[in-house]
């Protein structure tokens, strides 16, 4: 390893592995190192033994939970939107061929203490208990407006200027109740809090469109948000939600990108606990690893490798539960997401519940995994999660963790240290990939052209 590299990457989280893969494909010489003896860093999926090492050091997992190797427990639970940016990157790099995905069975939203399925088609929408009959009519005209809306075609704007009008005003225009607003903004627009209400409506309308198009895969190149949800739903016929999940857990994603890097010549070293960044005059010039050093033009990595160059911007609290049953009231789903909008729980930020099961090869036969997470607002994390935990029913085991979310102090242009931002509480990978694309731009000075292999464009 005592050589010179174009880039040294520290930590094998998803963001770092995508960067390594992209740089290796660009013919850059990459050395990728992790202090752990497993892939995935913060975004790893752990076996039962690894999970107990992390949360219950010295304790053995009970035999009733089954074999350790059957488990792949995500440390950062998220789903992929079928028409979202991560799928685009997977297709662009051909990394999809290493992975298999399953559609997520359903997306639910909490309203007045009850959970409701987010309708995935017209007949579900008609039967849904989310809204009364008259509210459904009003909501329908809102959705027709969103579906028809094309930014470039003023005719579809129907006299509304979404760049100036706030989302609150748009809701008012369609005369939608607060509960419907909660459902649209949080379960479809995937906003984490209510700040969007006072911002221009355009971004939210685009997010709802994406949701729709992910369900039915109608749209192309949608980057706007409600648009995101609809686009993901439409992507593959018969989806009950716009989300996908890989077999064997999310930890497969970083491994797949690491393999891409290795196939293009990247060098991989795990289990290097002593590795540290080497600076000269404040500029990152490589790494030290025991007696060895390696030099590089730049160093990339997750915040844990760059003490003093990052700051804490928030805390996420997550609970992991192992259960013998699906989440009650989800139609026995093997995979499900439940969004608890802030207003419904009297909080400042949304709470998210994820569930997946042995059907995804992430737990032993007849076991389910559930995750409850939110941005921390008080000093009593467990109490904060109670609204989400209450939906799970009895649990076999429960682990709770508070994680700092760090972000870099600088953009890397001066100190050649390109640092990723920690994984936020969002339920999907859109912000994750945005950070990666931004890092790629800072590192290479150019944008990653994802349009080349955009399936919608190829087929157009």
């Amino acid at each position, binding site marked *: 390893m005592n050589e010179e590299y174009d880039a040294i990457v520290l930590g094998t989280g998803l963001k770092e592995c995508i960067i390594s893969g992209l740089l290796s494909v660009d013919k850059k010489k990459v050395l990728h190192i992790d202090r752990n003896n497993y*892939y995935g860093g913060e975004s790893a999926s752990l076996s039962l033994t690894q999970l107990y090492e992390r949360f219950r050091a010295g304790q053995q997992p009970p035999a009733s939970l089954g074999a350790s*190797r059957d488990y792949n427990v995500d440390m950062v639970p998220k789903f992929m939107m079928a028409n979202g940016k991560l*799928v685009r990157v*997977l*297709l662009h790099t*051909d990394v*999809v*061929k*290493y*992975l*298999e*995905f*399953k*559609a997520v069975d359903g997306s639910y939203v909490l309203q007045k203490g009850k959970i409701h399925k987010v309708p995935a088609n017209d007949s579900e929408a008609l039967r849904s208990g989310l809204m009364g009959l008259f509210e459904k009519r009003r909501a329908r005209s809102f959705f027709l407006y969103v579906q028809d809306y094309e930014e470039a075609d003023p005719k579809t704007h129907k006299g509304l200027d979404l760049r100036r009008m706030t989302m609150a005003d748009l809701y008012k225009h369609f005369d939608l109740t607060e509960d419907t607003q909660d459902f649209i903004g949080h379960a479809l627009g995937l906003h984490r809090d209510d700040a969007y209400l006072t911002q221009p409506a355009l971004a939210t309308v685009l997010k709802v469109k994406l949701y729709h198009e992910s369900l*039915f*895969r*109608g749209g192309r190149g949608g980057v706007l948000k409600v648009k995101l949800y609809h686009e993901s739903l*439409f*992507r*593959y*016929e018969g989806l009950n939600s716009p989300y*996908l999940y890989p*077999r*064997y857990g999310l930890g*497969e994603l970083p*491994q*797949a990108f*690491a*393999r891409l890097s*290795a*196939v*293009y*010549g990247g*060098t*991989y*070293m*795990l*289990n290097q606990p002593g590795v540290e960044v080497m600076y000269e005059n404040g500029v990152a010039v490589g790494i030290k690893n025991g007696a060895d050093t390696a030099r590089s033009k730049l160093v990339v990595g997750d915040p844990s490798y760059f003490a003093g160059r990052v700051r804490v911007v928030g805390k996420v609290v997550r609970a992991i539960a192992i259960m013998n049953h699906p989440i009650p009231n989800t139609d026995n789903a093997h995979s499900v997401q439940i969004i608890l909008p802030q207003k419904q729980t009297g909080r400042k930020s949304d709470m998210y519940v994820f569930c997946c099961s042995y*059907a995804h090869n992430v737990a032993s036969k007849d076991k389910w995994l559930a995750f409850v997470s939110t941005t921390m607002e008080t000093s009593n994390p467990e109490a904060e999660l109670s609204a989400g935990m209450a939906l799970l029913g009895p649990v076999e085991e429960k682990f709770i963790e508070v994680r700092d979310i760090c972000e870099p102090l600088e953009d890397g242009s001066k100190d050649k240290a390109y640092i990723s931002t920690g994984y936020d509480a969002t339920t999907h990978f859109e912000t994750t990939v945005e950070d990666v694309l931004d890092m790629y731009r800072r590192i290479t000075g150019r944008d990653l052209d994802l349009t080349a292999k955009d*399936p919608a464009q190829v*087929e157009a």
Partner: protein
Amino acid sequence: MAMAELAQQQTAKLVLLGEMGSGKSSLVLRYVKGQFFDYQASTVGAAFLTKTLPELNVKFEIWDTAGQERYHSLAPMYYRGAAAAIIVYDITSPDSFTRAKSWVRELQRQGNPNMIMALAGNKADLESQRAVTAEEAQAYAAENGLYYLETSAKTAANVNELFEEIARKLPKPEAAAPRPPQGGIVLSEDTQRQAKRSTCC
């Protein structure tokens, strides 16, 4: 229709494991392309190579380690879902034989329990430098239920035999685990085309 044709042919993921320099890539290259180079570059540069055995109705997807084994950093994803594994050692290197045994243990612990495992003592053409006896390897293979052969990627000795015997040992498709499983989505060109067809309205 394409689905029906595919259903008859069994696609099997086959992985090679073993110490750097034991000849994994050379074995694959000899088998798939009939080539051999004295100084084979470490990386094949492809995700995997395929080879079809029409008489056995098997299509191998053969995965190379892409050099990730060099610092013992092979991703578990590599052997995930593999129907068969060839663990390769170099008959002139006792260290490579030790490493092969540790791969066997790793697969027994983490791998698919129905995986067909073969142990290949490669570089059999270098008889004068032999350091691992065939008896020792044979005994180890018998103890662990491995199919064992000595091979030479250089002379092609036993290379076809190795892969063909693995193909014969594969469980019949109806008995094997379905791939992709029920409800599975593979984001391939095919799914995209399928998805496209249903995008009308």
